[in-house]
């Protein structure tokens, strides 16, 4: 049951998006989200939609997976749409009590929903095409300028914590499963009963899990000490990230799209 949970959502493939430098992908994601939110007319929004759809196509990740992520935020999407319906000017179409739906409101609602959808698709494109490890390295590398303000060890610690957390997720899932089976063998009922009863039944699983995690952490710390770990100071990395020509091509395409959005905004 627990084995079905996969952490991170990496989808194995060798597409252009997969091979793009993870640091570049992360930065471009942030930049593109900003520009998508800047798109204010049908043409610039149309360009954004077209771009995101082509990213999805190039990534070679099945559309089904993108839609799966969409499902989770559907309530938020609908809620945002409804709220936005009532904000806006223009011709009143329907009015009841103090609220009225205007043409401007509909326009706003549709735009907001499209923006959020694009945002989800684009962030999924990053997580589907980048392994959690690469993502951690990218974050560490992107945050590294913080060392100039005396936060070097904080950045390293954060990255190390993420690495260890990723490494231990499958181990702890396996352990939780073992403990659950052990409790079931002793007659624990984890699936039936009221919500409060089921929550209570979880306590005998969480406590052993917590204790064993602390013990593991202690042993891991000793093992790290034996491997000369001394914090981030003076540490080097085996895998160096290099910007390759194709990364510049990806950057250029994104820059053109961003420029296009702004141009269409101004001209129409």
């Amino acid at each position, binding site marked *: 049951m627990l084995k079905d949970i996969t952490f991170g959502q990496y989808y194995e493939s060798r597409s252009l998006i997969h091979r793009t430098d993870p640091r570049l992908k992360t930065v471009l994601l942030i930049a593109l989200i900003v520009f998508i939110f800047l798109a204010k007319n049908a043409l610039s929004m149309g360009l954004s939609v077209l771009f995101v759809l082509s990213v999805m196509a190039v990534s070679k990740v099945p559309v089904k997976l993108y839609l799966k992520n969409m499902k989770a935020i559907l309530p938020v999407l609908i809620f945002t749409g409804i709220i936005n319906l009532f904000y806006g000017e223009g011709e009143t179409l329907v009015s009841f009590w103090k609220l009225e739906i205007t043409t401007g409101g509909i326009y706003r609602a549709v735009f907001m929903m499209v923006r959020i959808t694009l945002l989800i698709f684009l962030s999924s494109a990053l997580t589907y095409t980048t392994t959690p490890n690469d993502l951690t390295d990218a974050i560490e590398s992107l945050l590294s300028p913080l060392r100039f303000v005396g936060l070097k060890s904080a950045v390293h610690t954060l990255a190390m914590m993420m690495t260890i957390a990723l*490494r231990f997720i499958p181990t702890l899932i396996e352990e939780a499963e073992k403990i659950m089976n052990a409790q079931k063998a002793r007659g624990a009922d984890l699936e039936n009963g009221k919500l409060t009863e089921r929550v209570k039944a979880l306590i005998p699983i969480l406590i052993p899990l917590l204790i064993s995690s602390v013990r593991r952490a202690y042993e891991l710390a*000793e*093992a790290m*000490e034996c*491997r000369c770990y001394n914090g981030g100071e003076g*540490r080097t990395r085996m895998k160096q990230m290099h910007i390759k020509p194709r990364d510049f091509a990806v950057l250029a395409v994104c820059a053109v799209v961003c420029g296009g959005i702004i141009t269409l905004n101004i001209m129409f």
Partner: protein
Amino acid sequence: MDSIISVRNVTYEYREEETVYAAVKDLSLEIERGSFTVILGHNGSGKSTLAKMLNGLNKPTSGDVLVDGINTKDESTEIEVKRKVGMVFQNPDNQIIASIVEEDVAFGPENLGLEPSEIRRRVDNALKAVDMYDFRESTPHRLSGGQKQRIAIAGIMAMEPECLVLDEPTAMLDPKGRAEIISTLHRLNSDKGITIVLITHYMEEAENADRVIVMNDGKIIADNVPKVIFSDVKTLKSVGLDVPQTAELLYSLKENGFPVDTHALSVKEAAAEIIKAMRSEE
């Protein structure tokens, strides 16, 4: 004797509130460079405490541990000591840091601040030495216990230590995994000249060692070549250790008046010994 590790009159005490408990008592020991030493003892004999003192993880309460002449108590040379004496623990899951095999093996050399190309070279060599090179891009949690433990050994080997201390590295493994680890250790010892100190309570793992040390209650009670140690069935049993079946058989035969040499260790040698004794009876 050229010693890589010298343990001199070392005592180690655990303090729990008011009570003081000595796990290692006034123990002295020299580990010869390039040797394969096995330390045997049942749970609570002080063998793990001793192991953790060999690379400075535990500092002796009194006495000194010298690694290549460096005192482990000296904090300025702490990294130097850990670089010379690598340590492998019982549970491979709690020693592996990264989610990709080669990245985990690279962790030690990365901490030493080496050049990326040098780290790459060491990682490849270490993985080849434990015969896990083909798995370099796998994720550790999909590997078997024996394979994971070999990755943990590679992680230490990548720091190019002179000595490897292993604290019950096979305790959590199945027989196949245990055999893999023991043969890997013998290969590292004979091919690369790495000094091995193997701590275990499995008697059969000591069979091919150069030297066997038996510990009980924080002290060394026997220190000799495997053949001599194993023929001393009475001492081994008195400290709660299992004796190899062949030794036990020869021992009872001798007790009952058969003229057998109890030093025979392997099944083949023991069989030859028994046949010889039976012939002489006729």
